[in-house]
């Protein structure tokens, strides 16, 4: 029944709806999304609600994870890291993009755009490795800066109190370049007429940025915050590598994802590991939902 009706509907669609090619382009992505996005998610949800012998376990996996002595500290670590990182990301990325746009039509602009983007070309683990060298005063090219601030050894640099800032710096260095280029593109989309009209009305660069460019960038900023929030809650590679490089001095059990990893592979408790990842999924979805709803992200212009 459904086959015949969809065949009938197809004919109607072929006439009224020319977007078929688009579906063709999206289809491979959908396949990958199902294989590597949806199926693992469902698998994780299944694990989160079952025990080792595959019986329904209610919320006991969530309780085990939440009452573990590492859970609350990890939540605190990730929250502090997110706060520092997201604020610096929004302020610096938007600021740098505006400055870059102000430079337009000069050679410096093109060179800087390239420069900002380079670190982003390094994969996550590789960039964390670069920072392991940067942070060791003995071998770091900026060792004099570290020593000048009273940090003579690697151990002092990676003291627990420094970690949120260090991780935010690493994440900014690797991730911000791409966003600066995106923001720059968004700024280029703002009609020159609008800017010229503002200038004729006597608006300076500051007023143009404050009253025209920033409001028009708002959706892009929301987009950046949503994606960066989701990525930031998944913090894993940087502290994990740091912990291996420092032989466990810093970064062990630091983030929620590390705790999930430990549950799965050290404590042999896949259920609680899945419970943490499901919690992260829910938090990410709720925050994205809030931002989308409050910012009118999908409203047509």
């Amino acid at each position, binding site marked *: 029944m459904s086959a015949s009706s969809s065949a009938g509907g197809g004919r109607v669609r072929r006439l009224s709806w020319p977007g078929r090619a688009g579906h063709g382009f999206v289809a491979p992505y959908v396949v990958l999304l199902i294989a590597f996005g949806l199926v693992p998610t469902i698998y994780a949800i299944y694990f989160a609600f079952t025990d080792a012998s*595959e019986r329904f376990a209610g919320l006991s996996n969530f309780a085990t994870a939440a009452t573990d002595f590492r859970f609350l500290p990890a939540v605190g670590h990730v929250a502090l890291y997110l706060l520092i990182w997201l604020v610096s990301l929004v302020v610096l990325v938007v600021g740098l993009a505006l400055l870059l746009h102000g430079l337009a039509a000069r050679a410096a602009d093109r060179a800087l755009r390239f420069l900002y983007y380079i670190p982003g070309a390094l994969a996550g683990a590789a960039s964390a490795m670069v920072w392991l060298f940067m942070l060791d005063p003995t071998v770091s090219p900026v060792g004099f800066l570290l020593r000048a601030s009273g940090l003579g050894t690697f151990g002092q640099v990676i003291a627990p109190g420094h970690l949120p800032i260090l991780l935010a710096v690493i994440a900014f260095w690797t991730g911000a370049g791409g966003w600066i280029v995106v923001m720059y593109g968004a700024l280029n989309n703002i009609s020159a007429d609008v800017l010229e009209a503002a200038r004729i009305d006597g608006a300076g660069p500051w007023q143009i940025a404050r009253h025209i460019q920033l409001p028009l960038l708002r959706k892009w900023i929301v987009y950046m915050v949503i994606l960066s929030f989701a990525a930031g809650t998944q913090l894993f590679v940087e502290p994990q590598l740091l912990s291996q490089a420092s032989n466990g001095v810093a970064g062990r059990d630091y983030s929620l994802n590390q705790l999930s990893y430990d549950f799965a592979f050290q404590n042999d408790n896949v259920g609680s590991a899945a419970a943490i990842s499901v919690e992260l999924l829910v938090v990410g979805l709720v925050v994205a939902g809030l931002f989308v709803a409050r910012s009118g992200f999908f409203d047509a212009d």
Partner: protein
Amino acid sequence: MTDKVRADGARRAGKSRRAALAALGAAVTLAAATACGGGGGGTAGAQGGGFRQEPQKNDGPLTVWVDSTRLAAAQLYQKQHPAVKMDIVTYDGDANGSNYLQTKVSLFNRTRKGWPDVVFSSQNNEASWAVPAGFTAPLNKGLIPQSTLDGWAHGANDPCTVNGTVYCLRNDLSQTVLWYNAGLMKKWGYKVPATWEDYRALGEKVATEHPGYIVGSAGDAFTPEIYMWASKCGANQITGPKAVTVDTMSANCTRMAALLDTLIKNHTMSMSSVFSSDFDKNQAGRILMLPGPSWFGGALFQGTFKTPAGQIAVAPMPQWSGDPTPTVGNVGGGTWLLSAHSAHLKAGVDFLTWVTTANDYQGKLAPGYPANAAAAKTWLENQASSHYYAGDITGPLQTAAGQVWSGWGYGQFSQEAIWAATVTTGVTAGKTIVSLLPAWQNAITNYARSDGYKVGR
């Protein structure tokens, strides 16, 4: 009209999407159930050697996982036994508690295939998880004759033994001794300390007479295994498969913690890891004494620091004066595991026996002190004939091999990682080790509980 059709279509699409999702979910669940259920109804294996064996095969390669240091062993075996088909895989050897092996085995346990036949691990606590995971084959229930097993140094296979069953073979011993620079000692007229009291006194003397020189290092994650273990500190008394007694505030612990605090304060005890670039650059050339495991000689002095021959000598680990039973610590000492899932048990046992006992490898090539006593004898003769060390290293190393304090166990949780995160960070922040002992106790208790241990005091 168009609008209505589109709305209708959307609703229909929504419904079918939901249905598809539900179907997908069901399929995944089903796949998971069958995947995990497969184990129970699997092929009936033969019962022998004290465990359920897989059907054995004569063809197919023997898969061996080794770290880069032990690669030479596997390659030499292959060279001497060209008839054996081998698949040699290098991995990180689980170094620094990377848990790579445990991670992989738990994945293989899920997929019910993929286990290597023989694995080398640089960690000595693998039995603590590998036995409950059903990965290791019992070795003293028919696979390896007891007469062969008796050839290991006293207590060497303790980390491999659970309730009397041996589940792995120790590759090397890592008994601690006192490494020192014989030339400097003589030049400055110092006597090698036999007691910890003398050791501390010498440290204080060095601080005033030769500032910049060190008498030890406490910057590594294995610091507690050198000092606390040797001092009989009961921080890690594994009393059963899932039971541990932790008491870091006893006199045995505080006396050593106070000693370390004194020497850290006067800078004769380094707080940098001996493997760090900082240590190599600033301290490696100023070592007067360095308590540490047997492998410090080859791996550190000869390999990393490139100390010239004829300088480094070995003395017995200092003891507390008045203590009638001399004890030493232990840092690592790798293990070889045989998979219980192996379809090449005979070839696996042959390789395992060769690699742990053969003079060609353990006696002549191995970098560490062999756990097998006969191989250790050859190894020591080789070291002596190399003339790298100043004086005899055989006596102190052989004596120390039998003095590793048995009160420090081999639990699943990593004492090294706990010390690094709790005590090392605290000392770096300017606290004393004595003041950090309660935090250390607390951290061990927490990690032990999270691994399912019953913790007592």
